[in-house]
């Protein structure tokens, strides 16, 4: 076989698969929930879904702390969690602010505000080109397989599972080694300068969003006791509260701290995340009532 014939056949093989995937994408869209191999993958899926689906009533922007508050934990149906594990709450806030339509209420986590905005992600999701021309055939096949194996639970089934989880006693997982490591990091880092710069950007974004009719509230997720007293946590709290002293700007959540546990002193475990989610929903209800 001559080299040219070989190369032509090779090109034809590539073209056949590309055309097949192009047709499949046009036919099925990207409706399949692709499996996420990393938390960032999961975030991108959530961001794509946010742009594709109707604008929700409530949006959460946060870091890995808020990432733990899964959307299915909330009874509020039209809620999206755009928290970025390893990222900054401002990234999610920027993406929301750059959309033509806004949610009614935006909740911004105020625990970790020293990280820079992910400008590449903001640009990508602000342009709206989140739908690929071709879907990924292997991931799509795995997604179909996973959906076949694990059909999505109904709201009632989820509620039942969450109730069972809450009824269990708090976890006795010994996280001391991780908490000590986290405390060391939280005491080593001074977030003041970076947080001040980011606060200015948040103030500007809040002004823009509220001019367009959305309401923005800040919230703080609880840390374990030693981490609450760390240099990072106290400095961040001082900077944020001096920038936003008005209590009406804050969503106050009332939780029983003795019920809460952390995987590493910083991130809530699953049961605690559900408890905090419920506290958040109660706080939201009172916000609506006082409006």
């Amino acid at each position, binding site marked *: 076989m001559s080299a040219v014939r070989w190369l032509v056949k090779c090109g034809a093989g590539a073209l056949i*698969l*590309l055309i097949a995937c192009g047709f499949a994408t046009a036919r099925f869209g990207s409706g399949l929930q692709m499996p996420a191999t990393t938390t960032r993958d999961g975030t991108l899926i959530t961001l794509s879904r946010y742009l594709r689906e109707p604008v929700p009533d409530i949006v959460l922007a946060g870091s890995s702390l808020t990432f733990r508050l899964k959307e299915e934990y909330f009874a509020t149906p039209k809620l999206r969690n755009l928290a970025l594990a390893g990222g900054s709450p401002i990234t999610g806030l920027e993406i929301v602010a750059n959309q033509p339509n806004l949610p009614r209420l935006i909740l911004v986590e105020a625990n970790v505000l020293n990280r820079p905005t992910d400008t590449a992600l903001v640009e990508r999701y602000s342009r709206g080109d989140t739908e690929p021309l071709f*879907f990924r055939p*292997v991931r799509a096949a795995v997604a179909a*397989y996973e959906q076949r194996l694990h059909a999505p639970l109904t709201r009632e089934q989820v509620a039942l599972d969450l109730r069972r989880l809450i009824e269990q006693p708090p976890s006795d997982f010994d996280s001391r080694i991780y908490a000590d490591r986290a405390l060391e990091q939280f005491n080593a880092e001074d977030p003041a300068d970076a947080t001040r710069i980011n606060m200015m950007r948040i103030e500007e974004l809040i002004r823009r969003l509220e001019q367009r009719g959305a309401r923005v509230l800040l919230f703080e997720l609880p840390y374990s006791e030693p981490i609450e007293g760390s240099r990072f946590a106290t400095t961040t709290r001082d900077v944020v509260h001096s920038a936003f002293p008005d209590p009406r700007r804050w969503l106050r959540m009332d939780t029983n701290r003795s019920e809460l546990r952390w995987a590493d002193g910083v991130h809530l475990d699953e049961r605690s995340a559900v408890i905090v989610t419920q506290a958040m929903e109660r706080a939201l209800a009172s916000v609506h009532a006082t409006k």
Partner: protein
Amino acid sequence: MTFTSWQFGLFAATVFVAYYLPPLRAFQVQLLVFASLFFYGYGQPELLALLAVAVFGTYLFLVLALRNRKGWLPVGIAFNLALLAFFKYKLLFIDPASPSLVGFAPLDFLLKLPLPIGISFFVFHNISLLVDLTRQKASPPTLTDVFLYIIFFPQLVSGPITRAEMFMPQIKPKYFADIPLVEAAKWILVGFFFKLYVANNLNEMTSYMSFPLYETLQTQDRWLLVFLYSYQIYADFFGYSGIAIGLGLLFGYRLPINFNLPYISASFSEFWTRWHISLSTWLRTYLYIPLGGNRHGIWRTYLNLMIVMGLGGLWHGAGFGYLMWGLLHGLLLVLERPLLARLAAIDFAVFRAARMTVVFVCVTMLWIFFKLPNFEHAAGYLAGMFTPSTNPNPTKLFYSLALLYSLPVIIQHFAPSSLFEGRLRYVEPYLYGFMAALMYLEAGPETSFIYFQF
């Protein structure tokens, strides 16, 4: 500029077109040298000076050693080893973040330079050049030829480590009609496929092996990830070598094969004839044999094996983990050596499969020291493989995805080699086309080649 970037595609295409233009045929070597310098200096122009020092220095010592081998060859080798030691192992003794290191500005500047990409590879090229050409008592090659041998861009960053006696005779005018186009296309396509589809996708999963993320894994997932990393590192380096060999062919140079299905090895010595072949050949030729090889009795042979493998480990990086990796491989070679003849006498398929499994599992476990060069982290990971996980919120891994991304490595190792020699020969070009499409559609997130760090 990495092989997987569009900038590299543009660069390679431009150089390829210019290379075969008839008016430029007389300057092919100069063109490749210039292109290689551009390639190397693209991201780190400040390191071009170092490359120049390495090449000019080696050339000078080569000319001197051709006149007096005994006197100048050791100096030339020492010069290259000193370069490697300075840049690679300085971090064992200094903290580059410190504002002033020795208080002498020029030395501080040198100490703060980053690790030059590919230094481990081009230093080995230099030594090979000095040893091979002075052994042959050849007349000194031109400086341009020496430059091309050392910095030829497909092999500059991560090999294959080409021996001078194999490369230098290939330097002559090249013609477009002589290019083995299909062979080059196959190497390049399979190389990119293994890197983009296998290695980059598996890298997403094996990122959980990093400290402290591995603490979130279930025990069985720690085992799974070690095996996935074994496939990933193979796909990554085999992919790089494949692309390098294919590019070499496009420019008329045949680089050595670097991998030959290493995971079907039935002994550790066989593994080292199949894994990173150009490095093991280099170590055997320029270190093991000069140390005496197996010519001075059994204990000296064992000692030589341990020295070679220990230094081979340290060649990868300045860390106790790399040294451990090398020494443990050395130990495995020593332990199996007295048994090899008896094991080879048992010609039984199941027994050979069992031997392959043992070798694969041992080699795979030792990759932990590569993934986690910090010895404490590696030890922590290993310990976690044998203790039940108590984390209430473990990381979820998709086993089906892991299998599908690993499948090309498994198929490559276990599919009969005669598959494409019979009737399936006609579907071969289409399969390569499918691979090309799949690596575009299903490419994992961009990550640099693992061996770039060495």
